[in-house]
C-alpha cells in the first residue's frame, strides 16, 4: 500500500534535487528545468494532501501552479533567448551586470 508519506518523501526528494540544481547549475535552461521540478514537487505534495483529506482544494491549486509555471516559462524563455542572442551564452553567471 502506498501511503501519503511516500508521496511526500518523493516530493521532498524532487524539491531538493530541483533546489540543488538551481543553486549549482549555470546553464539557464537547466536552471529553468530545475525550477519546474521544484514546482512539480509542490504539485505532487498538494495533490497527495488533497487525496488524503478527500478535498479538491489541493487539486485545484495544482492546476493554478501549472498555469503560472507555463506562463513563467513563456516569459522566461523569451528573456533567455534575448540574452543568448546578445551575449552568445546561456550561463546565468555571465548575466551579472545588475550589481553594486
Amino acid at each position, binding site marked *: 500500500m502506498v501511503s501519503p508519506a511516500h508521496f511526500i518523501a518523493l516530493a521532498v526528494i524532487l524539491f531538493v534535487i530541483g533546489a540543488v540544481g538551481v543553486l549549482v547549475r549555470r546553464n539557464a535552461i537547466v536552471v529553468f528545468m530545475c525550477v519546474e521540478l521544484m514546482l512539480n514537487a509542490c504539485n505532487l505534495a498538494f495533490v497527495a494532501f488533497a487525496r488524503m483529506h478527500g478535498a479538491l482544494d489541493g487539486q485545484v491549486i495544482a492546476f493554478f501552479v501549472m498555469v503560472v509555471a507555463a506562463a513563467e516559462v513563456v516569459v522566461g524563455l523569451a528573456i533567455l533567448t534575448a540574452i543568448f542572442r546578445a551575449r552568445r551564452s546561456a550561463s546565468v553567471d555571465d*548575466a551579472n551586470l545588475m550589481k*553594486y
Partner: protein
Amino acid sequence: MTGSVHAALVPHAAAIASLHATGIQDAAGLLLAFPLLGAAILLLGGKRTNSWGHLVGVAMPVLAFAYGLAAFVQMLGYPAAQRSRELILYQFINVGRFQIPMGLRLDQLSICFVLLITGVGSLIHIFAVGYMSHDPERRRFFGYMNLFLAAMLLLVLANNYLGLYAGWEGVGLASYLLIGFWQYKPAAAVAAKKAFIANRVGDAGLSLAIMLMFAQFGSVTFTGVFGAVHSASHGIVLAIGLLLLLGACGKSAQVPLQSWLLDAMEGPTPVSALIHAATMVTAGVYLIVRSAPIFDLSPGARLAVAIVGAVTLLWGAIIGCAKDDVKKALAGSTMSQIGYMMLAAGLGPAGYVFAIAHLLAHGFFKAGLFLGAGSVKHEMNDEVDMRRFGGLAIAMPITFVTFTLAYLAIIGVPPFSGFFTKDPIIDAAFAHGGTSGALLGTAALLGAGITAFYMTRVMLMTFFGERRWDENVHPHEAPPIMTAPMIVLAIGSVGAGGFLILANRLLNFLGPVTGVPPVLRGIWTPVGGASLGLVVVGAAIAWVLYGRREVPVTAPAGNLVTVAARKDLYGDAINEGLLMRPGQWLTRLSVYFDNRGVDGLVNTVAAAFGGSSGRMRKVQTGFVRSYALSMLVGAVLLVGTFLLVRL
C-alpha cells in the same frame, strides 16, 4: 477724533490730553507732507528732475516753515493751558485691543522744534544749492535732505512713542544715506555704516523702552503713558528711563555711543550742519525732555542723564582741542554742546527749559559755524586741514564775520546767544546741590573754558596768521546764495539766546509742558562770572599757542593728552577692545562649535551610514544563484522558526 480732558486725574501738565487741533493747525499733516512730497518727486522722478530738482528741494522746507509759522501764530492766540493740540491722521495699528492712532501733537515743545527744523533747514537747503552746485548728484542730495526733514518732523510731532520711533528710524536712515552720499569714497561708506550701527545700539534701547511701556501701561501714546506712569513701580520707571537714555545716547552721540559723530563728518558739509549739528543729534535731548513725566519720577535715571551729559561735554571738548580737521573740531564741539543740553535735561524741571533754550541757540550758531566751515572748504578745494588755512579773514570777509559772530555765541561772550543759554545750565548744575551738583557744575564750568580754547584755536588757525595755503588755491568770497543763509544764521547766533532767555520768554512759553524751575536766578550770577573768567583764560591760552606763534603746517608730536584726543580719546579703541574683539572671538567660537560640534555630529552620522551601506552594497553581486541561495536560506530559516515556535 476729539481728545478728552482728564487733567484732574493726572498731576503732570504734560500728561494732560490735548484738545483737538482746529483751524490752520488742523492741517498739520502738511508739515510732513511737504518734505515727503519733495523727497518722492526727487527720488522717484530720477534724472528728469535734475535740472529743477534743487528748486523743489528748497521750496518744500520753506513751505513747511511758512506753515509752521502760521501754526505757531495760531498757538500764541490760545491761552497757555490750551496750547497743546492733537489731531489724528489715521489708524496706525489696529489689532484687537492694540490700537495706535497715528496722531500729531502740536504743543509748545514740538512747535519750537518745528520752527528750528524747518527754519534752519530751509537756510541750509538754500546754502546747499550753492555748495552742491558742482555735484552731478545734487538732485539726489536734495531728495535725501527732504526725506530727512520729513522724518525729523514726524519724530518731534508724533503724539505717541511708536510714531516717534518711526521718525527716529527715518532720520537714522537719512543720516546713513547722507553721510555715505559720496559712497565712492571708502571713508564715507565706512563712516555711514559706523553711524548706522552705533545708532542701532541706541535704537534697541528706545524700542525696548517702548515695549516695556506697552507691557506695563498698555499704551504708547504720550497721554496714556504719562497718565499711567505714576502707578508703576520705581524699578520699572528707572528701567524705562535708562533705556530711553540709551536711545538718546545713540542718536545724540553721547558717551558711550559717541564714536560715530566724528566720522560722520565725511558727509557733505550742509549735512553736517543740518543733521549732525542743528537738528538730528539733538533728538536725544527732545526725547528726554518730552519724557519729562517719566524722568521726574526717577531721580536715578535723571542722575544718569546728567552724568552722561557731563562726561560727554568734557569728552567732546577735549577731542575738539586736538583736531586739525576743521569739521571734526566742530563735531567735537557739537558733542560737547549736546552734553550741556543732556546735563541740563538731567537736572529735571530745573533744567528742561535751559536745555531747550541752549538747543535752539546751538541750532543757530553751530549751523552757522558749519556753513562757515563749508564755505571755507568750498573755496580751499575741499581742504579741511586747518594747518593749511590761515589768513582767510581778508580773503573771505563775509564768512569771517558770520563765523566770528557764531564763535562769540558759542564761547558765551555777552551779549551773544551762548552767554544767555549756557550759563544758566552751569548755574542750575551748581544749584542742584550736594556732591553731584558740585561735580556736574565743575565739569560744566571747565567745559566752558575748554570750549573757549578750542573755538579760539579754530578761529586763529583758520582766519588769522600766515597764509599756509597750497599754491593753486585762490579763495574768494562765496556766492550770495551761500552767504545769505550764513548772515541769517549769524543774526540768530547774536540774538536768539538773549531773545529766548530775557524776560523769561521761553520759560513762560514752555512752562506748561516742561515745568518751571523752582528757583529762578538772574542773568548775572557768580557762576556766570566764573564762567566768563574761564572763557577769557581759555581764549588767552589759545592765543598764546596759536595766535602769537606760527602754526606749523605738519602737526607736532604733541603730549599724551593731545595724542589721545587726536584719536578721539581712544573711543574706537575702546569699542574695538570691549565689543568688536570679544564679538569676533564669540563668532569664531560659534563657527568652530558649529563646524566641529553640530556639523561634526551630523557629518559623523552621515559618514557612518554612508560607510556601512557602502560595505553592505557588496552583497549585491549580480550572481542570480547567490540570490537564490539567500532566498532559500531565508525561507528555510523562516520555516524553521515557525516550526520551532509552534513546538
